[in-house]
């Protein structure tokens, strides 16, 4: 009886849920005080800490099918809806494992190197038909190597102390490449039909799938810069001397003859005894800059590159180019045109092709200055200066001190990175999401090292 009553009461004590709007008030605009309080109570998000470091990135653009850009999905799409991309017209970010300190673009291939002490210091991608990227073992058949490398793959270097030696710089030519280390000399790989790898030419040697990487140590002092021309190599040592080897039919080895050289030999001529601080070459013409601001040239002069001193089209001994444009800081050689940067920050071009002063200037033997206003200089921004100049085969690139990249020249397969396919007759900005630190120009592609903004 009592139990039944207790159960009935229990049932009653749980009333059915009535929809009451007890605490809810009708909506109305919040007062200023409420807004202010809501604002102060809002959570604060942190996207970057106080000690956030700027990240180092690599951007690539140009012709994709050779694999030189290092993005496999451009050539072999990994997802069904993607289509193979022939040209990457604007800068595309390339993910790398380490911070890349030096990059070089060859004729259809690229080398990236890092200053790390880890075992893998150099990565290569692109054309490998002459083993210019070393031996890239194929996964499917362990005895064969890849002809095209589609993503940055480690280059196996025969280092004595792989965990101590550091790679300082890389350089690429038409079918060979040079790797400069700090304590183990220079490593060369690739095609050696003209002795450009610094070793004796072997008749009927097959260069594809070759494991041979040659090491060069015999110089008067430590090598501090290596430069690849089309089929020759230049080495600059700490003492200011320049050595050369490779093809010489245009006099590009500067050794006084037009033959092949297979052992690096010191150059004489006008640079004997001069302290050279920079050399440059990419085609068959070479330029060297001394510490006093003079520029010397040798090699091919069919395009008026050296016409200021001689009428001959091949110069096989370094000649001083008596330009009265100021002290020269940096020089870069392309296939048909040359560019120099003076101490004041002015840029001069000469040679043949699209030189950067509009479509009317096609060739000149004497350097012509590119007006600084084209690089962003104005009364509003008087501090802008060009800091570096670089050359591809028929393109030029200039880096300003604000980290902006300007390009001009023939837009071969989209290599200028402007997003358009037309040739560019005067310096044009490339939009890169970051501050461009360095750029390497090739025949139909370019690679840039960039620091992010924040």
């Amino acid at each position, binding site marked *: 009886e009592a139990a039944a009553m207790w159960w009935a009461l229990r049932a009653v004590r749980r009333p059915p849920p009535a929809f009451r709007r007890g605490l809810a008030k009708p909506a109305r605009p919040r007062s200023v005080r409420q807004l202010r309080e809501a604002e102060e109570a809002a959570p604060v998000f942190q996207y970057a800490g106080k000690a956030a470091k700027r990240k180092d990135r690599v951007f690539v653009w140009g012709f994709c099918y050779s694999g030189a850009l290092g993005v496999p999905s451009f050539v072999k799409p990994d997802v069904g809806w993607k289509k193979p991309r022939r040209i990457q017209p604007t800068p595309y970010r390339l993910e790398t494992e380490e911070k890349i300190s030096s990059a070089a673009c060859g004729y259809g291939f690229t080398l990236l190197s890092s200053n790390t002490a880890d075992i893998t210091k150099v990565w290569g991608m692109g054309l490998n038909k002459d083993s210019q990227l070393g031996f890239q073992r194929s996964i499917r058949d362990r005895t064969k190597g890849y002809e095209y490398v589609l993503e940055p793959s480690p280059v196996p270097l025969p280092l004595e102390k792989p965990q101590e030696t550091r790679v300082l710089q890389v350089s690429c030519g038409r079918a060979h490449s040079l790797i400069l280390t700090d304590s183990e000399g220079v490593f060369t790989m690739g095609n050696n039909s003209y002795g450009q790898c610094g070793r004796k030419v072997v008749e009927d040697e097959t260069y594809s799938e070759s494991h041979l990487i040659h090491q060069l140590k015999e110089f008067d002092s430590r090598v501090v810069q290596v430069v690849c021309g089309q089929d020759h190599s230049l080495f600059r040592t700490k003492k200011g001397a320049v050595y050369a080897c490779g093809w010489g039919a245009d006099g590009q080895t500067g050794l006084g003859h037009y033959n092949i050289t297979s052992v690096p030999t010191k150059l004489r001529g006008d640079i004997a005894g001069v302290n050279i601080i920079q050399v440059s070459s990419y085609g068959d013409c070479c330029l060297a800059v001394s510490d006093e601001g003079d520029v010397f040239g040798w090699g091919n002069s069919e395009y008026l590159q050296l016409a200021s001193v001689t009428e001959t089209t091949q110069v096989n001994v370094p000649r001083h180019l008596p330009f009265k444009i100021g002290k020269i800081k940096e020089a870069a050689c392309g296939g048909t045109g040359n560019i120099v940067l003076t101490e004041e920050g002015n840029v001069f071009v000469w040679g043949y092709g699209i030189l950067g002063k509009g479509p009317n200037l096609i060739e000149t033997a004497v350097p012509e200055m590119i007006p600084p206003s084209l690089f962003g200089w104005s009364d*509003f921004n008087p501090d802008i200066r060009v800091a570096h100049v670089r050359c591809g085969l028929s393109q030029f690139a200039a880096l300003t001190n604000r980290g902006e990249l300007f390009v001009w020249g023939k837009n071969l397969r989209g290599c200028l990175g402007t997003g358009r396919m037309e040739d560019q007759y005067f310096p044009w900005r490339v939009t890169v999401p970051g501050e461009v630190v360095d750029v390497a120009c090739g025949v139909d592609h370019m690679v840039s090292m960039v620091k992010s903004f924040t």
Partner: protein
Amino acid sequence: MAAVPGGLFAVYKPAGVAWGRVREAVETRLLRELNAVPGRAPRQHVRFLPAPGDDGAPGLVAARVPVLADHPLVLGIGHGNKLLTDLYNCHLTKVYTVGGLLGKATDDFSDTGNLVEKTTFDHITREKLERILAVIQGTNHKALLMHSNIDMKTQEAYELAVKGLIRPMGKSPPIITAIRCLQFALPEFQLEIHCLHETQQYLRKIVHEIGLELKSSAVCTQVRRIRDGVFTLDDALLRTQWNLQSIQNAIWDCQLKVKTELEKTLGHQDKIHLHKMDVDMAHAADS
């Protein structure tokens, strides 16, 4: 008494006042003074530059304007209206000082909007801000060249690019020709922006995007036009100067500037209006 010469003059519009009211005030004052003068008072039209930022339905304008501060307005009298159109077709740049506040993001990019997010900003330095501004300037310079509709492959395009005279001569999206940081004191900063075809909302959006690039957020606190083509703040007439005499003086002072600018840019077009300006200048010199 000679008739008021037609021409252009600039007026200082105080903050928070709709530009329509300013126009009415100047109009009323002018008409009153002219009527007081014995002699025929020619009918006057007063026309205006469509002040950017005040475009759109008038109702909306009143709501947005209070955030922002002062603008010199350019007004025209008589045949000055046609000069106004010509000046507009010159596509000259306007200069603004824009104030920003870091740490907040709102829905209409100004500090009176609804709060969207609050972020930290202690990692931001003046150097980072200047880097972002350099990039904004660079990409806008590229846009300037692209929208100017000149074939980049001609020698003419090269010459104009060297002199810095390439400008879009038609409709184009807002373009910034120059931007720099005047003051930087966390959390506030002030920018000077030179731009073309801009709207007020675009300027606020720029501040917001700068905040995003810096991995934080920013809102715009103040927008102030300090130059409109050839008219600077110095040429603007204050409220106390909205009378016939000062307006006449202002028109006379600015005439030369306006004429040179029009000749330089529209020199190849018809010179009818410029001729009329010459006649006016001669009249004024006589009287």
